[in-house]
């Protein structure tokens, strides 16, 4: 008898392990497009890390080799060479780290700030909520790209500023998403129970409310990486992002644009790189949304 009981608990533990995360993964696996997105993202990260070991910035990325300038794509130079004779393929692979890091870090900034604002707004309600929402409204009323332009010119060019600027621009979106997700949780009975048990507000917010309203935020964050990369490359394209000769994709596109008439491959490949990256994050976000909330799936 005693033995059977322990067996039951072991069985129960097995079920518990398969809960949230594996459930989401099981649902996520079902979507082929989401899996394509995930595979590309993993591949991109692997390539980015490998490129940092394979190439040296001063020797392979920024150098002049005027003998080999503007060569068409060939077996030796897969994506051709640019006006300084630099290999476009190598530059694109090496440059992946700028786009990826801007996308990911800016989302971390936006998500961190926005989540706190949204949590406070949703949890406390009343005048606090009103102030935070109005504040978000002001920033959502300014087109993203123009706000980016204003922030970049105020704080100067550079990778860190770019991350911060995009993070700030997207903060109100995360605040709104978090607040909307918190609202239905706020009045749940288990929150009431936590209050009665004597948990502090901070504890309730971060331990009980947040974990239960995380799904839309995760989806927003994945999609946010995609739009962050797009905004960053737009700013670089306008000459306000990462300063040249950094091989940021938007900046490379902008450089190639001057030679668009005769050397269109110089604009083609960086654009394709941006599109593939953004697309894969969007596919992942789409898949995650369906996996996290199967009810939404249509």
């Amino acid at each position, binding site marked *: 008898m005693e033995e059977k009981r322990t067996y039951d608990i072991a069985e129960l533990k097995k079920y518990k392990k398969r809960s949230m995360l594996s459930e989401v993964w099981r649902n996520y696996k079902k979507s082929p*497009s989401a899996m394509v997105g995930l595979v590309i993202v993993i591949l991109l990260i692997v390539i980015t890390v490998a490129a940092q070991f394979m190439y040296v910035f001063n020797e392979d990325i920024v150098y002049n080799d005027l003998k080999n300038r503007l060569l068409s794509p060939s077996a030796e130079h897969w994506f051709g060479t640019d006006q300084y004779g630099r290999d476009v393929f190598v530059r694109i692979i090496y440059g992946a780290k700028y786009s990826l890091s801007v996308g990911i870090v800016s989302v971390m900034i936006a998500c961190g700030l926005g989540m706190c604002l949204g949590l406070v707004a949703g949890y406390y309600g009343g005048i606090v909520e009103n102030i935070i929402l*109005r504040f978000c*409204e*002001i*920033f959502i*009323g*300014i*087109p*993203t*790209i*123009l706000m980016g*332009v*204003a*922030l970049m*010119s*105020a*704080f*100067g060019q550079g990778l860190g500023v770019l991350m911060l600027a995009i993070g700030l621009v997207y903060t109100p979106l995360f605040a709104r998403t978090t607040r909307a997700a918190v609202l239905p949780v706020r009045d749940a009975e288990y929150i009431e129970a936590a209050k009665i048990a004597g948990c502090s507000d901070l504890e309730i917010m971060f331990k009980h409310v947040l974990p239960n309203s995380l799904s839309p935020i995760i989806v927003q964050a994945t999609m946010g990486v*995609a739009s962050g990369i*797009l905004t960053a*490359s*737009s700013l670089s*394209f*306008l000459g306000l992002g990462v300063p040249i000769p950094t091989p940021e994709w*938007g900046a490379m*596109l902008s450089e190639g*644009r001057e030679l*668009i*008439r005769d050397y*269109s491959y110089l*604009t*083609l490949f*960086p*654009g394709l790189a*941006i*599109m593939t990256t*953004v*697309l894969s994050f*969007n*596919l992942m976000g*789409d898949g995650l949304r369906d996996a996290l909330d199967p009810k939404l799936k*249509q």
Partner: protein
Amino acid sequence: MGRYVIKRLLMMIPVLICVSFVVYFLMDLAPGDIIASMAPPDATPEQIELMREELGMNGTVFHRYFRYLKGLLRLDLGQSLSQKRPVADIFFERLPRTMELAFGSIFVALLIAIPLGIAAATHHRTWLDGVSMTTSMIGVSMPNFWFGLLLIIAFSLHHKWFPSYGADLGLKSLVLPAITLGTEQAGTLTRITRSSMLEVIRQDYLRTARAKGVSEKMVIRKHALKNALIPILTVLGSTLGNAFGGAVTTEAIFAWPGVGRLTVMAVNSRDPNLACGCIIMFSLLLNVTLLVVDIAYAYVDPRIKAHYAK
């Protein structure tokens, strides 16, 4: 209804004042002194100071901002320092071009999104659905300045069908910029049309309509689409509002003489009045567009009209 509109219009005032505050202070943080760069190279510091006073740019940033705000409350957007003309004149000179582009792009977007979205919803879980969802996802993910450049390569360098820059040839100049911006907007619109139609298509009243012998075409067009319109209108409103100011990259590629590029120029030349004026006007346009959309809801859905009347 009238009271609702007035309330919304009044609520825009504090929002716009806050926008002006944020942008004015950001512009002040930017390095570089426009007055010093405007002065002749041999000007003494006293002369520069005098110029600053003449242009109303003396004092701390707070002084300057309150002077600016005082003008703003009298609906005066001030003088542009770099162009030495009233900001309002410069803005409204260029606004029609931006409007053309915004409406042109929305037209292209609707032309793509509505049929594609409806087809995806009515052929749910078929290859057609897959194709339309993949296309719309690519549309959302594509950097639109890149797509614009591809269009230039194909249709103005290879085939000389459309001009690659400027707005001098009327409708012909508008085609490529409108397609560039429109395809970007179409992505989101297609997805929202599809999901909104899917929601409606399962309703009982559609079954009733079919049961009483209404043709499938009419069911979709009259019964389903009309009821699916509200989410589509919402997205359409914010897309249009953003197109007024957010088309910066499209305007940059096609050298389109619109206000988006004007704003970037103003920010780059450290012209606080012009930059602030433009961004305030965008914010106003966006808010008015959203209000118009909210009013449009009332006409689409009588239930919402009753809610406004309260």
